């Protein structure tokens, strides 16, 4: 339930609140839903990224890094606890 709320909250935050709050919510949701940071990053860049600026889609890249880190940690924890 909490992970679902955090997932929704990170998407809502991407529209209504500054990006640091969105990042915190996405990282909090990543514990149970590792794909949320990537999804929130892609959503934020879909709203705001300007390809003509010549810059990189920072939110998507940051979300991908956070998702990768969450998945890696998750696999390490599962290995450490024997898959329980």
């Amino acid at each position, binding site marked *: 339930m909490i992970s679902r709320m955090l997932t929704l909250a990170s998407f809502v935050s991407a529209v209504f609140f500054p990006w640091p709050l969105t990042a915190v919510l996405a990282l909090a949701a990543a514990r149970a839903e590792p794909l949320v940071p990537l999804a929130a990053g892609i959503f934020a860049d879909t709203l705001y990224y300007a*390809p*003509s600026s010549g810059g990189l889609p920072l939110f998507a890249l940051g979300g991908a890094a956070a998702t990768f880190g969450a998945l890696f940690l998750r696999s390490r924890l599962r290995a450490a606890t024997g898959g329980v």
Partner: protein
Amino acid sequence: MRRTLSPRRNALLSSADLSWGAWALAAALFLFFVRILAPDLFFRAAEPLFKSADALSERSKAFFSSFGDAGRLALENEALLLENAALRLENEAAEKNIRARAALGAQGNGIVASVVARPPESPYDALLLSRGAEDGVSVGMRVFALSSGGAREEEKRGGVPVGTISSVTDRFSRALLFSAPGVSTYGWIGTENIPVTLLGQGGGAMRATLPRSVPVSVGDVVYAPGPEALPLGRVARIDEDASSPSLTLHVASLANLFSATWVMLRDLGGAPAPEPVTSQPARL
């Protein structure tokens, strides 16, 4: 003891369904492809969201500012009430003027467009505007900031240049600001018209490097290229290192990009446009 993997531990699958994270990723990718394939439809749908985010931001600022010293706030309140009455009249007249010009579309002076999304909502230092190709907007047009109330000296002369149109769809356009990271803009500085290259730093800030021997000081005005000598910023700070032969100037825009609600678009003909560091096909 036999251990089994619980499907709930799977990042993609939860029980027999996809996890919320997978659904969220699918939704984000769907919206991404909608933006790529039908940008007009996407931004038309997103415009109410941006406007409501604006309104929420304004109300939260008013709410948090109320947590100040009560006595000081009472005095400020009284002074502001008096100022507000005078500004309201001026504001109404200016708003009426701007709406009349917006309703008429393309003008000899330019095209008035409302800002749909701006920094910090748009952290890439770009403005999403409500006018597109149907209204005569084209890539390369210069963007000038307007305010809905009060007219400072720069605005009386035609506005503060803040960027150029970088991409256009039928009903929307995107303006890349001079302060966008990676954008370089040529201009000149001060009364001696010293040529300078401004580099965008993001967040409305620009930077330039000049030789130490150049006579420049804090407060000097920086002008944009083009047929009109319009100031676009002021030198806010100068960093100098005794071991370096150059000075680093930090330039702040004269316009408050974080509260821009209306802009004017004008085609300046052969005025050189800012250049991004990497060239990419223009997409909104």
